[in-house]
């Protein structure tokens, strides 16, 4: 049995096992403190990192953190591990792996080829040895391109989910928020509604409206009502216009059972969506949301720190070729991520870990009113994530989600990010914006004046939506 210990200035720091090393090495966050897993001092935290840096990457293949026999996520990770892809880094320690990831040798092609050889635990481990700038620099090299009716994840592009939620699912209200977002060039990742009332009949109604809107204006994007996967299966059986199947997922079988899902029900839903053949240029039909703290809140974390078990959720996502995945990073509340600093770090970790595993990661850059965070923190995180090449971010009117009662990004923020980074929308969507005469000669979204013809037409239509 390996001895996990490190001596420094006469003090010896000992760690009981592998998962304890990982937990103590994590950047400080309230969720690990709540779980009683966090380092008890800053020195212990760094000692754990020193121990972690010397561990061989292979140890995560040899010692599953959650037993194979008891957890289907562990079985998925072990059974789909690609040893040949892992070979180029199989001799490295976690610390050497960190340095190699930052090296010029590790370019986009190498990292893409490596992804199937990496397990979530390896990726979570190395992220704990990386500063924020490392997480950004390496994620930026990971190119994950996905397709349905448009192409998400190309270098130099930034997509966004348009989230037109309404507290009573009023069709006219949703149409108004959708129109507003389109005028800012939002919606190329997906136009996706969180329904206030989550049942099959209501989903059919909302999907019908979104699909009609998309077809009328020939918008090259996909729509989604974020209902439970079992509802989506029923909706498809009833002939509903399902582009993407949505589900919240987590990093253990027990946590997924808390969400009411198993790998087999996800497979069933994916097959059903594929059989509809609604994608025009690709068949990536799944959309997942994740977020640190979900497993602990379901008492299904197996003594793992919240960042490591979160990363295991990306192995679940990866198995279903998703078009979109996003961490809902600040939504869960201050008992898991206390303040802006913790939310920002977690957002960068989630994005890095997913991208290194080959998952098309986006982010809901967000916070609740009882967290120690504000719009300045969101400005920082969205700017860093765009520098890191995030696949998409979520946007709502004026940063205020009036259904879920939390703050996400504003449509305005998409303009800011695209402008500062010279990032463009998905190519097919960009062509559509030009065709609709919504872009000026400098490539900027036109400011819609009341007399603007496009605006008049769209508004007239959305008034009649219901």
């Amino acid at each position, binding site marked *: 049995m390996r001895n996990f210990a490190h001596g420094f200035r006469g003090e010896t720091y000992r760690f009981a096992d592998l998962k304890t090393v990982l937990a103590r090495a994590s950047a400080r966050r309230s969720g690990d403190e*709540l779980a009683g897993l966090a380092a008890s001092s800053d020195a212990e935290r760094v000692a754990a990192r020193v121990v972690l840096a010397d561990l061989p990457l292979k140890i995560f293949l040899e010692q599953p953190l959650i037993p194979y026999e008891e957890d289907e996520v562990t079985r998925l990770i072990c059974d789909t591990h690609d040893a040949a892809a892992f070979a180029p880094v199989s001799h490295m320690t976690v610390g050497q792996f960190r340095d190699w990831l930052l090296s010029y040798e590790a370019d986009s092609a190498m990292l893409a080829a490596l992804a199937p050889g990496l397990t979530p635990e390896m990726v979570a481990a190395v992220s704990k040895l990386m500063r924020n700038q490392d997480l950004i620099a390496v994620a930026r090299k990971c190119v994950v391109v996905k397709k349905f009716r448009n192409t998400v994840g190309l270098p130099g592009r930034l997509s966004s989910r348009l989230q037109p939620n309404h*507290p009573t699912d009023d069709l006219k209200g949703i149409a108004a928020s959708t129109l507003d977002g389109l005028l800012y060039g939002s919606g190329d990742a997906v136009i996706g509604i969180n329904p206030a009332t989550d049942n099959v009949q209501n989903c059919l109604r909302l999907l019908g409206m979104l699909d009609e809107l998309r077809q009328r204006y020939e918008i090259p994007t996909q729509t989604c009502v974020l209902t439970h996967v079992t509802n989506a299966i029923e909706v498809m059986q009833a002939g509903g216009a399902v582009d993407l199947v949505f589900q919240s997922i987590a990093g253990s079988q027990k946590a997924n059972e808390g969400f009411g899902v198993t790998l087999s029900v996800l497979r069933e839903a994916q097959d059903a969506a594929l059989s509809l053949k609604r994608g025009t240029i690709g068949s990536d039909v799944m959309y997942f949301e994740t977020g640190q703290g979900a497993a602990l809140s379901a008492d299904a974390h197996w003594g793992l720190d919240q960042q490591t078990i979160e990363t295991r959720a990306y192995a679940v996502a990866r198995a279903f070729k998703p078009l979109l995945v996003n961490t809902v990073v600040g939504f869960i509340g*201050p008992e898991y991520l206390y303040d802006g600093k913790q939310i920002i770090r977690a957002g960068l970790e989630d994005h890095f870990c997913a991208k290194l595993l080959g998952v098309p990661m986006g982010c809901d850059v967000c916070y609740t009113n009882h967290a120690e965070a504000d*719009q300045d923190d969101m400005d920082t995180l969205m700017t860093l994530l765009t520098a890191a090449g995030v696949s998409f971010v979520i946007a709502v009117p004026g940063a205020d989600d009036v259904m879920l009662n939390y703050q996400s990004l504003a449509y305005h923020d998409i303009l*800011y990010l695209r402008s500062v980074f010279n990032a463009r929308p998905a190519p097919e969507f960009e062509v559509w914006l030009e065709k609709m005469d919504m872009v000026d000669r400098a490539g900027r979204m036109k400011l819609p004046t009341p007399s603007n013809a496009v605006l008049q037409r769209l508004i007239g239509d959305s*008034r009649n939506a219901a």
Partner: protein
Amino acid sequence: MPPEDPWEQLRLATRARIGLGRAGDAMKVEDVLDFQFAHAMARDAVHAKLDIARLKTALPGAVCVHSEAEGREQYLRRPDLGRRLAPECFEQLPRGEYDAVLVIADGLSATAVMHNAVPMVEAVMERLSGFRIAPPVIATQARVALGDDIGEALGAKLCAVLIGERPGLTVSDSLGVYLTYNPKRGTLDSARNCISNIHTHGGLSYTTAADMLAWLMREALRRGLTGVGLKEASGLLGGETQAALAG
């Protein structure tokens, strides 16, 4: 004459912040400040303290207790501590023959409690003739489940916790009520009934909320349960109350 604002009609259909102007790529200053005001109100509600003296005057005989969480920061970081009564408070809650106790808890919005708890308690008390009600309990740094310790200590058959809900940008003083039959430590949330969104800015009125709560309390005593089983039985209620309970 400037053309009519094309967004005016659409704003009737949603509270969302649609049709904002732009300053370059950014929001206009009035919209930025309006947002900051709403966020500040919400944050202030989270960090506000109950005015205990005022509540005690309005609720004669009230007892004050607190959870194991010491201060707001620990309360926010450690929900588990907010669910447990501080050991020294148990002696203030002598066991009695009670059908119910009403707990007034700060939760995530002391502002909601200061605005709405007293009229809500008065409205409920009017509807509970024949009930043996314990003296009201004012609880600070409290989560919903703190009512389990309080109800258990008093030996009350029912515990109704009136608690400040997490503030949103639109409403920062919304009150919720959680009713639990046979309260004791470790009760699952699925064994409670909730009435939420009680406030005076277009939320549930005190009258309606009190009607619902009184109905739930009588039925809970009669059937010996709260939670999912009781929610299903609420089909007996009138349209408005039923809809509010479902939400």
